[in-house]
């Protein structure tokens, strides 16, 4: 019997796993992205092509990697190559999805994972871009997974580490970024958000069971648009939870953590 209670991490992973079409390609990091990609491979997209920026291509992951280049990422891989190769695969347009987090996100999906406060005198210093800027610049669709809060969802973003739609429609193209790319979904503990085609502003696509539009808006520091086709998010299925808990993350390395 699967316990149908689920925590926020489990919810976000299950929802994220449904994004991929079979045969899509994805650049992943450790943690939630990896769990979502693994779950998706087992349930929805058996041909999901998983790549890691340290150089591994199409592994059959035995467990959650702790590091983007650790041995699990090479397990039964179809190729082990270089970071430049992985980045140039992105630059050639071969990667459909990437998966990011961040300390702050604004209404255009711009992300901060560098500093809070002034760059030269930061209150908090985070790791910086890592591969995030490259992924979000060059993959076709960026997916962000992050908990919903006023502090995180803010237009007073201290530093744009990673490009969303920058200052709005046309701004990515003007900056020189590849055509037709950008943020696609933001998956939080309360909702799935998308981006309005015209204005490129963040928009509620579906609200998770137990939450309302107001809950989502109250936990966002800027005004959200609401999709005409607003839905309630389907909760994690029995199958999703079972496979996530038993096969994807049996040691609860990711699903045992608090969403942050």
């Amino acid at each position: 019997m699967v316990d149908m209670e689920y925590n926020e991490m489990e919810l976000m992973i299950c929802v994220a796993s449904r994004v991929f079409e079979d045969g899509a390609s994805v650049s992943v990091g450790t943690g939630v992205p990896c769990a979502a990609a693994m779950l998706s491979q087992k349930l929805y997209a058996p041909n999901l092509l998983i790549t890691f920026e340290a150089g591994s291509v199409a592994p059959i992951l035995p467990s959650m990697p702790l590091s983007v280049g650790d041995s699990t990422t090479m397990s039964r891989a179809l190729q082990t190559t270089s970071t430049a190769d992985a980045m140039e695969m992105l630059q050639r347009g071969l990667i459909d999805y990437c998966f990011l987090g961040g300390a702050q996100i604004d209404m255009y999906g711009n992300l901060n994972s560098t500093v809070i406060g002034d760059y030269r005198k930061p209150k908090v210093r985070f790791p910086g871009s890592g591969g995030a800027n490259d992924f979000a610049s060059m993959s076709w669709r960026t997916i962000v997974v992050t908990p919903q809060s006023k502090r995180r969802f803010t237009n007073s973003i201290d530093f744009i580490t990673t490009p969303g739609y920058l200052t709005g429609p046309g701004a990515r193209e003007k900056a020189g970024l590849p055509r037709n790319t950008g943020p696609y979904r933001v998956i939080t503990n309360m909702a799935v958000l998308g981006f309005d085609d015209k204005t490129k502003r963040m928009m509620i696509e579906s609200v998770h069971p137990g939450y309302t539009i107001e809950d989502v808006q109250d936990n966002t520091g800027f005004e959200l648009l609401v999709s005409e086709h607003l839905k309630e998010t389907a909760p994690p299925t029995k199958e999703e939870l079972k496979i996530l808990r038993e096969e994807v993350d049996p040691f609860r390395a990711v699903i045992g953590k608090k969403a942050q």
Partner: protein
Amino acid sequence: MDGVGKLLGFEHPDDMREFFRKKSKKLEPKLMGLGEAVDRFIQEGDYLALGGFGLVRIPMAFIHEMIRQKKGGLKCAAFTSNLDTDMLAAGKMFKETDVSYAIAFEALGFPKIIRKYFESGEIYTTEWSNGALGWRYKAAAMGLSFLPIRSMLGTDTQKYSAAKEITCPFTGMKYLAVPALYPDAAVIHVHAADIYGNSYIKGVLIADIDIAKASKKVVITAERIVPTEFFRNNPERTKIPFYLVDAVVKSPFGSYPANMPYEYFLDVEHLREMLEAFSDEEGLKRYLDENIFKCETFFDFINLHGGMKKIQYLIDKENEILGGYNG
């Protein structure tokens, strides 16, 4: 928009050509001890590049010896380095850094004291993405002063970098030109090397081949020293050729507590202890004292954390994941 960050590690390709011209291409023995390699090849003020990535294939024994010898005043690339540049930060060994990813031990958490060091204003940072920093090495590896790339554009990462915008003469497209990065010294940990420096890396190569080509001095630390026949019998094994290498150091288990793919897995237990120790100045000082200054050799250090038994556990774990060495 031109980046406002300070340009570190840059050289004119013609100057580098003169340097590389003078570098010996003789097949001559370069084997030496860790102490000598650190002493001879790492100088104050050097721009240092370290091979590996995150918690994987890190030249940790070399870094310990650098801390032991109190090498300082360095510049370095924090290229999805955490364990490696964090250790250098722990020893307060660098003042300027090109950073694409630092501080956090990826999925395991972050060492508070290292974050504080980065927040202190004592370190000057120039900002990059992993791709950009990797391409900076690649530009140098190609003998160029820059490469055009399509990321970082439009962001503050671009603003605090030292990149410049250029236009494609064929399409009119905007590109970001990232400047070459020519480190003074590189240290790369490999699976096997011969005494001349020919080196074999198994599994992901990360940016290490480009780093070896880009750097003025290259130190190889190797899990094992093998006869040159290992390469002559199958020359596709040579990931780094001898003529790029200045020193070869035998360094078994030299990546511990980081992962050496196909050899031993990372030691989560020890990494968690490090994160704990690196919470405050006192814990940090104690860690460095016990694990580096009071240890004569790298084996002494490993013995503090379980020695043979721990190593065998990490080998077994690795064999479970990658099915044993299948070179």
